[in-house]
């Protein structure tokens, strides 16, 4: 183990470590602590200029009620859900198919296709912006949920396919060979052998995609115009203009926006990190 386990160090070193840990954590999380504390700060504290000191009272419930009552944040949240969930489902479906296609069959050009999927994921969004906007206009899905959903499915399929291909390629190939020898069709092999085995990969991708798509700001900015269709990331910019001096309400709104992916992360941590660190432990 590196560094040397702290238990093997002197008592004073251990004590230092135990003190340093929470202090560094507080400094590191200061921005998050600031959001939470501000979201619970009362109007009277703000009027008194008490922006960063200990709040004299906690006003979480009032602030949240005010945000939901005076802005469209409820709609924004719902829009985020409406955009995010079908996008994840679509990307996972397409990429399971494509990942299996690239992992289970040998044919010329499979590495080229894989390379295109991976490379496409890293391109700057700006090179796609004008044509994709035009494409959604041509398809009649500009300024609808579907415009963003279709784009997210297509774009995220790149990363997901790469991920699924790697996962499927690591599965014991004998299973597939045995099934083929028995005369099982390829579609049946996919549905009854591969899909049950890739469930952990699907879980990892689902949580990752949830945060990526939920937090995405650029594509709704480009593809959505109507206020009533805006997801929460765009909604926050509206709130920023609306609550120009009510920091507590803007903070409450930010907290609400940040909460779903954070909860998803803490609930599915193992899967999330497994997905994110794919390849980090290889030699």
């Amino acid at each position, binding site marked *: 183990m590196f560094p040397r386990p702290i238990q093997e160090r002197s008592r004073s070193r251990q004590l230092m470590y135990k003190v340093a*840990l929470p202090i560094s954590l507080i400094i590191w999380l200061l921005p998050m602590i600031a959001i939470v504390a501000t979201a619970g700060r009362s109007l009277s504290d703000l009027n008194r200029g008490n922006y960063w000191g200990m709040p004299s009272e906690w006003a979480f419930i009032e602030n949240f009620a005010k945000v939901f009552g005076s802005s469209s944040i409820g709609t924004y949240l719902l829009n985020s859900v409406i955009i995010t969930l079908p996008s994840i489902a679509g990307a996972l479906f397409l990429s399971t198919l*494509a990942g299996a296609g690239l992992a289970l069959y040998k044919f010329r050009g499979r590495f080229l296709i894989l390379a295109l999927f991976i490379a496409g994921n890293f*391109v700057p969004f700006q*090179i796609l912006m*004008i*044509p994709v906007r035009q494409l959604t206009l041509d398809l009649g899905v500009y300024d609808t949920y579907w415009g963003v959903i279709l784009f997210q499915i297509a774009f995220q399929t*790149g990363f997901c396919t790469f991920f699924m291909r790697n996962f499927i390629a690591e599965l014991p190939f004998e299973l597939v060979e045995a099934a083929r020898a028995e005369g099982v069709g390829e579609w049946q092999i996919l549905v009854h052998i591969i899909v049950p085995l890739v469930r952990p990969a699907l879980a990892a991708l689902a949580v990752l995609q949830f*945060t990526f798509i939920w937090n995405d700001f650029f594509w709704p900015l480009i593809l959505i115009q109507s206020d009533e269709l805006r997801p929460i990331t765009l909604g*926050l910019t509206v709130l920023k203009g609306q609550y120009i001096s009510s920091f507590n309400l803007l903070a409450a709104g930010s907290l609400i926006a940040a909460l779903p992916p954070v909860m998803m992360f803490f609930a599915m941590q193992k899967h999330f990190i497994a997905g994110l660190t794919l390849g980090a432990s290889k030699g």
Partner: protein
Amino acid sequence: MTEIQVLSNSRRRTGSTFLRKHQLIIAPVAFITPAFAMFSLFVIYPIIQSIGLSFVEWQGIGPQTWVGLDNYRELLGDPVFWKALTNNVYWLVLFLLAPVLGLFIALFLNQNVFGIRLVKSLFFFPFVVSQIVVGLVFAWFYDPAFGLLATMLEPLGVKFPAILSNENWATFGIILAGLWPQTAYCMILYLTGLNSVNPEIIEAARLDGAKGWRLLVNIVLPQLRAATFIAVVVTIIGALRSFDLVAIMTGGGPYNSSNVLAYYMYDNAIFRYRMGYASAIATILFLIMDLYIAWFLMRLLKNEKGSR
């Protein structure tokens, strides 16, 4: 195996012989086509279209006029373009602090003490928070009138500068905000990497008298190569993609001093209806990014080709 047996029996009864005979050709085509079609339509083809648009003048509607290399020529003489490009270089260089800081935090947290798992998660979770939220918080911190930094420095008699409305500092203020989640990401990559470091090699090196810094540089870091590689690539791409934070914190201002290529492109397309010019900026950004994408792919596929 019984399940497979049942399947094969049911399979024998259905399906035409032609499809079954050529399954190994038809299946991969059928599996890959939907994903590839979507990806081509929304990602690959638009790239080609954008490059094409960079040679025309177009307002977004109406006719497109071929102007050859004029857009690129104009870029060369455009001070905002150079400013944005310079800022992208600042982003790139300073963002590379993220893997370094991430490594040190990972080393700091790679211990077995009570509650460490929760501490690791808490260190990581800035990455899960939307960049828009990160941008809003850092903007509050920097606010010269009532921001946290100004409030903390006030008793010391130090006047905190208005970072985000200062032409010299705005970019660095945004980069610092970006470093926060990026460092968290690199940290988690290194924590995973440290997990799989071979303990026997470490022990052997310790017996040979290696410790501290030398042990880290000569023995541990080479074993963390995979984590470092991913951290560096992802960080570089993150730096070149920077858009959200610029959009929410300064909108490229003051006077374009914090502009980056990604935002300047958006600005030209959406607010000035200069689609051709915007496409030229996007193409330049794409070309810069290609270097890193190519590097990443070459390394990745070299590893992959060995596998099945």
